[in-house]
């Protein structure tokens, strides 16, 4: 919906001095009152408009300040290949973040591989294969509750359950499973929204041709919902990339070598910034490393954020969906 109309209807009252003077008796009094009320309303409108515009401007300035400062301080470091792909140093200057960058990408991919099928499956169940009932209500309640839980709680749960109880140790897999639980609600929500947005006539056409429900879902509903699902998944990947609190006690915060197996410990960039903050004094140039790493992380996250929208557009075009 467009903003409200910009023109404000003025009451049909002669508010000029002469008009007010000429009105006698009750009529004049009423007109005077109405004119005053209208003036007050216009004034209030101006103040309100100023306040709302200012808050929007402040929000925008805050965003610009965040991105601007982080990039201004760290982008120079981050774009240096010897930093971006270099070996980290624990006690010396000149360390890079190669293994951290790799850990972040690895973890994001690993988590997506688990959470996307699970989340899409769950959403398909809710949108296509279930009826409103006790079970569906339970699932929705569980999902909503899960989405409200703090990431540090996911982190310590991941630690006691995946790392200790299931004996995965500090590892990419333990982190990926923790993040799966954490991001499942988001993937479920975006998928369910996209699936529900597919017109019912599509399904009816397919079903009336004798296709089963699963065939209809697979061949008609899912392809039509794909652009929306892709956007949501890529946005989620950006969130996984930036997560730190859930990973400190499940994956690890510092490694020297690139982790190859999912059962090895790793150090995603976001968690590594935490490491530098808490034990940074050991690295002489910790400020440079952390600034560079923050800039690299922000660029990656922004990339995922912007790619999300663009990707959906590409898929739409390829499949010839007009909207």
């Amino acid at each position: 919906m467009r903003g409200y109309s910009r023109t404000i209807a003025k009451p049909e009252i002669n508010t000029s001095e002469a008009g007010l003077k000429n009105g006698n008796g009750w009529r004049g009094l009423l007109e005077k009152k109405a004119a005053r009320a209208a003036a007050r309303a216009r004034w209030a409108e101006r103040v309100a408009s100023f306040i709302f515009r200012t808050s929007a401007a402040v929000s925008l300035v805050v965003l610009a300040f965040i991105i601007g400062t982080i990039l201004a301080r760290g982008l120079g470091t981050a774009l240096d290949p010897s930093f971006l792909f270099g070996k980290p140093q624990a006690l010396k200057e000149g360390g890079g973040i190669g293994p951290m960058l790799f850990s972040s990408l690895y973890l994001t991919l690993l988590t997506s591989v688990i959470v996307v099928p699970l989340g899409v499956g769950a959403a398909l169940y809710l949108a296509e294969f279930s009826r409103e009932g006790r079970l569906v209500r339970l699932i929705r309640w569980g999902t909503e509750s899960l989405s409200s839980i703090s990431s540090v709680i996911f982190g310590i749960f991941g630690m006691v359950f995946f790392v200790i109880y299931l004996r995965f140790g500090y590892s990419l897999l333990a982190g990926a499973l923790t993040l799966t639980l954490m991001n499942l609600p988001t993937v479920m929500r975006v998928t369910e929204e996209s699936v529900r947005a597919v017109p019912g006539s599509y399904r009816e056409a397919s079903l009336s041709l004798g296709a089963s429900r699963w065939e209809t879902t697979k061949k008609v509903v899912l392809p039509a919902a794909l652009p929306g699902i892709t956007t949501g998944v890529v946005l989620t990947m950006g969130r996984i990339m930036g997560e730190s609190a859930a990973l400190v006690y499940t994956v690890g915060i510092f490694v020297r070598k690139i982790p190859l197996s999912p059962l090895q410990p790793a150090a995603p960039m976001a968690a590594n910034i935490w490491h530098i903050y808490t034990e940074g004094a050991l690295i002489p140039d910790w400020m440079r490393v952390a600034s560079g790493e923050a800039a690299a992380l922000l660029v990656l996250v922004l990339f995922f954020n912007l790619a999300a929208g663009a990707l959906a557009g590409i898929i739409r075009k390829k499949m010839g969906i007009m909207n």
Partner: protein
Amino acid sequence: MKPHLKREEKAGPPAPVAAGPADPLRGQKETVVRWVLRLCALVSVLGLFLMVIFLFRESLPAWREAGAANIFSSEWSPDKGKYGILIFLVGTMAVSTGSLIIGAPLALGTAVYLHAYAKPSWKRFIGRGLEVLAGVPSIILGWLGFTTLVPLVRRFAGGTGMGILPASIVLAVMILPTIATIARDSLEAVPKAFAEASLSMGATRWQTLRRVTIPAAWPGILAAVILGLGRALGETMAVAMVIGPATAFPKNLITPTHTLTTKIMLEMGESTGVHRSSLFAMALILLALSMFLIWLVRRLSAKTIKGTSGGAFYC
């Protein structure tokens, strides 16, 4: 929902009569698929139950050996067997209240601007900006707070520059997109005709908002603020980097203190026994708090238009 309407609520049209060349396994296949999808959907419930069970199990020694009276007291010194979490509870409350005081007006102002004042191009641009802001990792906001906000506070107010004030500001930025987008969505969900009727009677935009749109969207706006509060309660990294930390009640807005999340984060790695267990007890209390907030939001959403409110929960 009325019980006799239930049948019509099922998703999509009824299953068709089998036609064409019969696949003998078709029926079984459908059943298998349905069960697999159902299991996927149950993972979230299973995960939630596992979390509650394991957190409870780990926090059991604290409840048993220290006792609830000890845990809900104000002295925290694990060496002497004192596990009072009141300091952290107060810290969490102070920081999230502060973030709401700073962030909520800004967010609601932005939401109203987007709904009623912005031109379509600005609407899209700022809406996109809010999405980007929501995606900025908390560790980056914490780092930025640590390197810019803390020195600034130190310069103007003295002390270490760390404490509730900088933490509230950082958190305000974090909850801004959450509150703004959900509040905007609930404003947009108010039928257009309401606002049009008011405007056509000669009301100004502000009069329309104040008397018509905002009252109609009120439960959704409240839900947005509560969800923002929930996010503030649970935020860890950004707060940990600017709040101190120190295990003491905050004397004013710029003395170092602790919140539940930062205490858990900073001590989980190096604690054992009842000390560690009491950290899990904190986590359990935090979990209960956020589930209570979600319950509150649910109650509120029940008042708005049915079916449109579901999305608000996850943001």
